[in-house]
């Protein structure tokens, strides 16, 4: 009894301390629900298409997505996938999207740098030639590449959604430095800029101006273009881009689990049968 009590008490001591971490950090991300959550979750194709439009018309002005190619847009579970075109390079949407872009190439006759129309095999062109150019245009800050963004932050989807919708006027007494914006969901420490009374506000400064506004993007399917809708849709697109094989993975996983359960059941029955005459 004493032994059990001791062990339980020590466990209690170790785990009671859990929530302390949150006290000083940024605000906990807002919790939205996503169609791609859970073991049976799938991407909502219409939403990912809208999200691509938000990315293309808003985010792409500053953020690269260098790991994505136009062909990815037409692959299975991608925003423009179509049963009729199992090879995404044949997909007319993909082709016409690629055609909108000009990319650098080398003229094989002269060796000069030339511009040509992009093909489905090309990666998304980056908005800046290099890091220095990106920083120069953004007040010294570097807009991060968004290819794997949802995997690269804890609670990625909720975090990006919270940042995009979480901008608010700085609390009284907080001096926001030039070219910076206050966001309670951004990790950071604003205590050096706080002259007010009481607790230092949670969150931090972000160099990105609030990127979304009502009706900034016109959705082709007639969905009302609110900031919240734009944020959700672009997060769905980024979640797909971070892990384009997510749906395939989960579907494969369900089949694998069923297979393993049956396999385990058969082995259990065999085990009982083989051991039935052995006292152990």
């Amino acid at each position: 009894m004493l032994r059990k009590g001791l062990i339980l008490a020590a466990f209690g001591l170790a785990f009671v301390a859990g929530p302390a971490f949150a006290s000083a950090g940024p605000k906990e991300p807002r919790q939205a629900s996503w169609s791609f959550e859970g073991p049976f979750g799938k991407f909502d194709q219409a939403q990912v298409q809208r999200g691509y439009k938000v990315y293309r018309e808003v985010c792409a002005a500053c953020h690269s997505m260098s790991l994505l190619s136009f062909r990815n847009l037409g692959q299975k579970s991608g925003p423009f996938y179509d049963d009729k075109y199992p090879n995404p390079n044949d997909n007319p949407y993909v082709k016409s999207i690629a055609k909108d872009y000009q990319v650098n190439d080398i003229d094989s006759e002269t060796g000069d740098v030339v511009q040509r129309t992009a093909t489905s095999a090309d990666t998304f062109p980056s908005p800046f030639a290099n890091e220095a150019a990106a920083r120069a245009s953004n007040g010294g800050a570097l807009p991060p590449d968004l290819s794997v963004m949802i995997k690269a932050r804890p609670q990625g989807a909720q975090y990006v959604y919270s940042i995009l919708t979480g901008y608010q006027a700085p609390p009284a007494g907080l001096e926001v430095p030039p070219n910076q914006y206050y966001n309670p969901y951004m990790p950071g420490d604003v205590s050096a800029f706080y002259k007010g009374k009481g607790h230092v506000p949670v969150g931090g400064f972000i160099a990105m101006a609030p990127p979304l506004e009502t009706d900034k993007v016109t959705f082709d399917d007639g969905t009302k273009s609110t900031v919240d809708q734009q944020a959700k849709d672009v997060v769905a697109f980024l979640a797909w881009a971070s892990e384009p094989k997510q749906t395939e993975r989960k579907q494969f996983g369900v089949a694998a689990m069923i297979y393993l359960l049956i396999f385990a059941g058969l082995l259990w029955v065999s085990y009982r049968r083989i051991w039935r005459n052995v006292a152990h």
Partner: protein
Amino acid sequence: MSGHSSYEPKTGIERWLDTRLPIVRFGADLLDFPTPKNLNYWWTFGGILAMCLGIQIVTGIVLAMHYVPHVDYAFNSVERIMRDVNFGWLVRYMHANGASMFFIAVYIHMFRGLYYGSYKAPREILWILGCVIYLLMMATAFMGYVLPWGQMSFHGAVVITNLFGALPIVGESITTWLWGGFAVDNATLNRFFSLHFLLPFMIAGVVILHIWALHVPGNNNPTGVNVKSKEDTVPFHPYYTVKDGFAISLFLLMFATFVFFQPNALGDAVNYVPANPLVTPAHIVPEWYFLPFYAILRAVPDKLMGVLLMFGAIAMLFVLPWLDTSKVRSMRYRPTAKLYFGLFVLACLILGYCGGRLPDDPVIPGISTFQLLDADLNSMVWLSRVATAYYFGYFVVILPILGLTETPLPQPESISAPVLSHPANAPAGAAASPEKRG
């Protein structure tokens, strides 16, 4: 291997082969190996570990076909595997989560050995070979984690390789030699890839020695009592192939849950940010399986002492067979030792917990007690110190003294004895022999 062989070559070819290379006999003897019939599910982790090693080697070889060990391409090549290689996501997630599964299994396997006294005579070499495998596993896992060249890969490599810099006089030269330059850079990544490919095969080699050393004295068992007669054993096949197979299928179910539905839950999100030597992540934390040692390292204010203590924590395992003075193998018959063992497991869990937190984080939130030496008493660093003291105390004080002072419970006469008169259908202690000590 021990015992006589019951293999009878039946065909002409088998007889011909048997006098030249008795490989069929070798396999038949392995399958026929007499195994105590009372092994519980804690004994299935040996088979599970063999499977883990197999999975890591097979998936690793496929990954190596697509991975590019270069600072400019490593990160993108891993993402390319996930996006463009057929089932690359499956292979890579199996490999990444497989490392965690491997450590879950090895820790259970080691705690099982500690509890049932599997390190005691005549199994000291078997135990030490296991410790060598564990060390090689840690080196392999550490170098593997560096390969995707994310932020945590890079900065983890910087922190761990810098530990050798704490050694007096030779420290700096050793660090430079490990790096292949004056910083963690392309040369470091390349050699880590090379060694990460080599070490698993060394592990496989030591595993063969480990199984050889197992087959000389035979398995320990939950009673810790030696096998006395044929009554006590069953042939390994089919009895334990089917039991291990069942346990492996359950383990795979857990493995699959991570691979398919939570593939990144055991990793750090920061490692999906490409390595940048100029930006240090807010918290550098190793993978979960290294956290207890990380906590021991940080519990000591002096860097060199911290490093020595961290390696000492593993060295303890190597000398354990000569630290434990008790002649009773299984803690089933050592009630006091059982209590201390429970606290030892708890100390390891607490160390793991502390390793994942900042040293100054309070243990009980919102309370600050008083400053003791360099930190508040209510801080992770002091909790780590208490747990570290217990970790070492368990090996160098408790086990040596306890074996001489405790009064163990009576052990059964043989493995079959408690089985045939199970407590459920016999009066308590009926089958037990009088106390046997020393």
